[in-house]
């Protein structure tokens, strides 16, 4: 059986959060809900999310800040922004900050699924490439080094992944 995609949804509209989460759960997503940015970042520390769906405008920490922190702390997470504002400027800004996609509210559910899947694929590809790179690095490292050195270098690479 295929591994469930681990998804974090952050929105201050609880009703929205509940319904979207249930629908995604029906489609083999493993969903974690957060109603504000602080909770979201805390959850992300404990669980390795594949993807995050972020509302842009939220009381307290807003979507952009959460995006920045997530991208900084988690190398392979892909983030999709959701917003009711839907202005081009904020879309560009979020993309620069590393968001994979940008969806204006209300959106078509099929479109969301499509974007989520694309994002997941992109994440897999990125992970795969990173793994390849790691293998290459490892093979280079292995040449003419002591086993202790090799282990130390491998731990370094792991830290980078995190």
């Amino acid at each position, binding site marked *: 059986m295929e591994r469930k995609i681990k998804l974090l949804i952050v929105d*201050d*509209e609880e*009703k*929205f959060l509940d*319904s*979207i989460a*249930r*629908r995604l759960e*029906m489609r083999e997503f493993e969903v974690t809900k957060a109603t504000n940015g602080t909770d979201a970042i805390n959850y992300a520390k404990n669980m390795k999310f594949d993807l995050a769906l972020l509302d842009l*405008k*939220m*009381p*307290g920490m*807003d979507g952009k800040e959460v995006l920045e922190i997530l991208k900084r702390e988690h190398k392979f997470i892909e983030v999709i922004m*959701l*917003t*009711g*504002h*839907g*202005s081009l400027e904020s879309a560009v800004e979020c993309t620069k900050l590393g968001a994979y996609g940008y969806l*204006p*509210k*209300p*959106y*078509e*559910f099929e479109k969301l699924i499509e974007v989520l899947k694309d994002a997941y694929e992109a994440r897999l590809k990125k992970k795969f490439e990173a793994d390849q790179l790691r293998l290459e690095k490892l093979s280079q490292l292995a040449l003419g080094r002591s086993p202790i050195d090799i282990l130390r270098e491998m731990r370094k690479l792991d830290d980078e992944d995190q």
Partner: protein
Amino acid sequence: MDDNKKSDIVNKDTLQTERYYKGLQIKHIIRLSVTYLLPMIILIIYFQLQYTELIQESDSLHIKSIAENKSNMLDLFMNERVVNLINLIDDPKFKFPPDSALMIEYLERLRKDSDAFTDIDLFDFEGNRIAYAGPIEKFEITNYSAEKWFIKLKEGSERFIITDIYLGYRMQPHFTIAVNRNVGENFYVLRATLEPTKIYNFLISYEKTSDTYISIINSDGYYQLVNPSFGQLLALSPYNVNSDEKLGLSYSYINNKKQKFAYCWLSAVDWIVIVQKANGTDSFWHINSLTIVFSLILLIIMFIVIVLRSKQIVESQRQKDEAEEEKAIVELQLEHASKLASVGELAAGIAHEINNPLAIVASEVGLIKDLIDPQFNQQPDIKDIIPHLDNIHDAAFRCRDITRKLLSFVRHSDVQLKEYNLNDIIDDLVDSFFEREFTVSNIRIIKNYANDLPKITTDANQIKQVLLNLLNNAKDAITPPGTITITTGKKGDYVFFAIKDTGCGITKDQIDKIFLPFYTTKEVGKGTGLGLSVSYGIVRNFGGDIEVESIPGKGSTFRVYLPIKLF
């Protein structure tokens, strides 16, 4: 049909404004006339009256002096004639009774002194004519003892007698002078008949050179000498003369017309010289007609000037009114434009407010579909679905509330003055448009309301527009997180609200310009530069004011004062 109606209304409107301006012009004409013309007319009348009085006084003096002069001359004439006769009869050489040749010689002697003498008679003691010289050849009466003059002379109380004018045998006006003489036991009377032509001519010639009528009446008021074009000889004259004064002024009434005349009694005979202005009271208008014409022309010119001036005043007033009306229309349009623009600025926030519930709707609908989709094998109970339907319902009404509030604000509504508590107006707007917007933008709102605020009469919609502009500006000035403090209170006859932000502030250069239309510091396309200028206009219209304090980098405070009593 509609167009006709419309043009009818327009015509009626222009008709009414025309009538208004016409009335205004008449008012100005009356006002200017009262200010300028009335004093002038009063002055003209005053001087005219003064002048007339002067003229009449001088007229009076003039005719009085003529009367006195004539009277003196006539007296002189009469006295001379009496003396002529007395000299003749007192002459020691006078023969009693003279023969007719001698009588003719005596007449000739008299005529040398005055050709007014026409004939002479000599009467004896018994009143019989004893001698005659003159044009009459045969007498019907020869005894005159019963005649008044004869009796008077016989009594001896008078030396001479002058009779009134009478029509003699030849129907010519005559008068007689009779003198007496006692010769020893005998008593004689010498009587001369005189023609008044001399005097008459004298009077007429004087009349011709002046504008006066001169006539002579006796003590009973009958004409003795008169210009035939003026009165009839021996007829009753209209003059009523005071007998106490020798010389005087009086008034006659001919055909109900008051007429001034001067009179002077003669001393030699009970006659009165009457002098009257030929054109009488008409002199007032006649003499001054030139002045009157001149005054009238002056008045007319002044009136024309006044009419033109009033027209000019009304025209400038009209232009002013029209300009003001135009300004008012433009202001109204500007106000509406600004309202729309400020709503436009709000639109982003509003979109968020609407899109969020819409997202809920879409999501809930999708969920319900999933639940009943056999593919997911959920087999939902109806109770599981109802909460989701409720969520959809709530979301739909959230949207409706927002659009309704937005529309009620943007709609071109008439000014509706009502009593409001300022706090309620602010709450209504902030809760509708800003509460969530500020929460999600990390702007804290602190409401610092006074509880005992008196109610004010105002138009809530316009005050909301001011608030909206100020809150939009405050929001734009803040880089989140920040705080907007809304304070209300009372100061003297005003209530106020203050919007204080922790934004970027306004520099000294900018602060002079912020109320100017189209001045904006916002990015192109974000601000119209109308918000503050229109807000200021609204507040001024209500008799209020806006105060600004700002520290660059720290924030600004806009304080809006509104009078508690609107008028």
